């Protein structure tokens, strides 16, 4: 280090000697008369044209008096010139150190922006609501209401192609009221299809809500359950989709309207005295006997819950209240299943009977 410093000093001393030797020669005579005060002032302020400035410098190079005055005037001008924000900014930006720092910061900012932009919208859609839930405090979570069905359906349907299965959303809170959106005016067909999807989703959400005790209802636990529910929904989604698409293809719009009306009525109706199903089960009744059968099959394939059969029974009774939407054979099957559900029997033995009743219905041609 010291060696390098001494080398640098020696080099500078050599340069100085060489420069002084060059200056020790004959001085050139000043070019022209001494500069006028205004010309000198304009030179210092940089207001002269290039040719004129060079002529002035040529004189200054040979005139010691003008040289001394030039330096003094430049010093005064630098000290008292009006502060120009643009000049100061340019000087700041031109510094190599500042340029390096600014370049590094820009590169870092670009990297962060890239990282935020690169992940697909899928990740955003899954993660962002959970993040929002995490940031909310527990009382705020309790106070917050589930957004209307149309609001939920919009982010689900907009970014996805129609033929793709609906992307799962975090499970809605079981305690949140969902009756209000059902009171809306008659929805268009696409909204009705979404309502069918929502019905299936609400089932799963209700299941998730039953599996977890309320004491463990913290944000982190809720997130974990939301992810579990998402996985479950993803697994059963093709079957649900087939059901709902079959319904839509059948063009049973009247049944859907009745379903909406039934949902409203169910939400307004008092809880049953016997075995009240969860609020989500009670509110979102199956629209047709086909959907009800599918729900029974699915419930029997999954782990049996004590509330399942009571909910199925309530739904069957609800369907029986709408005889116009049922064929006579469906009505008979439903009545048989409801009667079977009304009998006291171990939970493990119910499903084979119920499935047998449904299968016998499938084997018989519909009238």
């Amino acid at each position, binding site marked *: 280090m010291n060696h390098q410093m001494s080398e640098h000093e020696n080099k500078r001393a050599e340069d100085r000697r060489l420069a002084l030797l060059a200056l020790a020669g004959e001085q050139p005579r000043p070019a022209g008369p*001494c500069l006028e005060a205004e010309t000198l002032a304009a030179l210092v302020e940089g207001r002269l044209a290039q040719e004129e400035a060079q002529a002035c410098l040529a004189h200054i190079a040979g005139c010691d008096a003008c040289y001394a005055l030039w330096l003094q005037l430049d010093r005064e001008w630098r000290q008292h010139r009006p502060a120009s924000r643009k000049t100061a900014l340019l000087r700041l930006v031109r510094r190599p150190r500042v340029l390096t720092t600014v370049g590094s910061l820009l590169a870092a900012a670009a990297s962060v922006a890239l990282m935020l932009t690169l992940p697909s919208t899928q990740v955003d859609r899954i993660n962002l609501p959970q993040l929002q839930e995490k940031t909310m405090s527990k009382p705020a979570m309790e106070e917050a209401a589930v957004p209307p069905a149309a609001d939920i359906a919009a982010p689900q349907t907009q970014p996805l192609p129609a033929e793709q299965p609906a992307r799962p959303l975090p499970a809605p809170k079981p305690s949140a009221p969902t009756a209000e959106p059902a009171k809306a005016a008659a929805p268009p067909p696409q909204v009705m299809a979404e309502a069918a999807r929502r019905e299936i989703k609400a089932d799963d959400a209700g299941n998730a809500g039953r599996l977890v005790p309320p004491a463990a209802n913290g944000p982190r636990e809720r997130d974990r359950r939301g992810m579990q529910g998402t996985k479950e929904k993803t697994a059963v989604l093709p079957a649900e989709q087939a059901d709902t698409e079959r319904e839509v293809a059948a063009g049973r719009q009247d049944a859907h309207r009745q379903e909406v009306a039934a949902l409203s009525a169910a939400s307004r109706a008092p809880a049953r005295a016997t075995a009240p199903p969860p609020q989500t089960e009670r509110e979102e009744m199956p629209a047709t006997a086909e959907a009800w059968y599918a729900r029974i099959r699915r419930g029997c394939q999954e782990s049996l819950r004590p509330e399942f059969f009571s909910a199925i029974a309530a739904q069957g009774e609800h369907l029986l209240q709408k005889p116009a939407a049922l064929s006579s054979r469906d009505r008979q099957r439903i009545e048989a299943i409801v009667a079977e559900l009304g009998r006291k029997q171990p939970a493990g033995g119910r499903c084979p009977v119920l499935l047998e009743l449904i299968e016998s219905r499938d084997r018989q041609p519909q009238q």
Partner: protein
Amino acid sequence: MSRHSEKKLPERVLTAQDRTTSANPWQQQAMAHWQAVNRLAARRFPQGAMAEEAALFVMEGLARDDWRRLRAFAGRSTLTTYIVALTLRLLEDFARKRFGRSKPPAWIRRLGGIWLTLFRLLCLERLAPGEAAAMAGNGLPGPVRAAEEAAYRILGEIPDCGARSGESVGLDETTVLPGTEDDCSHQEERLAREERHRLFAVLGRLLFDGNIGGEIDPRLLERLATIALPLTPEERLLLKLCYRDGVAVAEAGRLLGWNRHQTHGRLRRLLARLRQDLAEVGLEEELRLLLS
């Protein structure tokens, strides 16, 4: 400085015509710059009384012939810079009137720049080396350091520096002052042979700081110096600023209208060219001896 800046322009500066027509715009402009004039005078002359006298001299010079100098302003620069330029010149006029003129030694004239200024400040105005260096260096660290070294060198080379100071010189309207707008070309004179010998003897001591000065033949330096090295005015100014007056390279480039990178590049190429020119005339060995 503040003591001077608070002073008011005395009535005697104003002519009778000014007092009657106080709306003279040039007079108002001069009055507006009175504090700046005081500040410059105080910086040029450390003694308070002399600074006040110099400031009055400047204002009288500005007011002469119905503010002729100010009326000559054509708007090519800002008025403030123009008035500062006029003030600096008038302050030098005052210094010549007050302290007289003295012909500097040939080696100081040859070196020029801060050497001439320091000679005047030390040997005519009898300032202390520190004061003279601060004034000649314009307050900049590099030039002040170079000026301080030069000041002590001058005092060492000129034992009777300041011995004949304090002799006032009569100055009337017919006196033509060197360094004013129309006169500075007669500063260069032909050097006498003995003066040339002394010039290069001193130069040798300056260049080599006395380390090997005894071994350097002044005639070798003279021979080197007589070689006509082609320098453009800008190159000459660059060498003067950087190596004679101690101005930073970037600052010298700013004065010449170049940016930092241009200045370093030009300086590097200029020094390489000087070495090459001296080598081409057969002085490579002498140069190596001098510079190494």
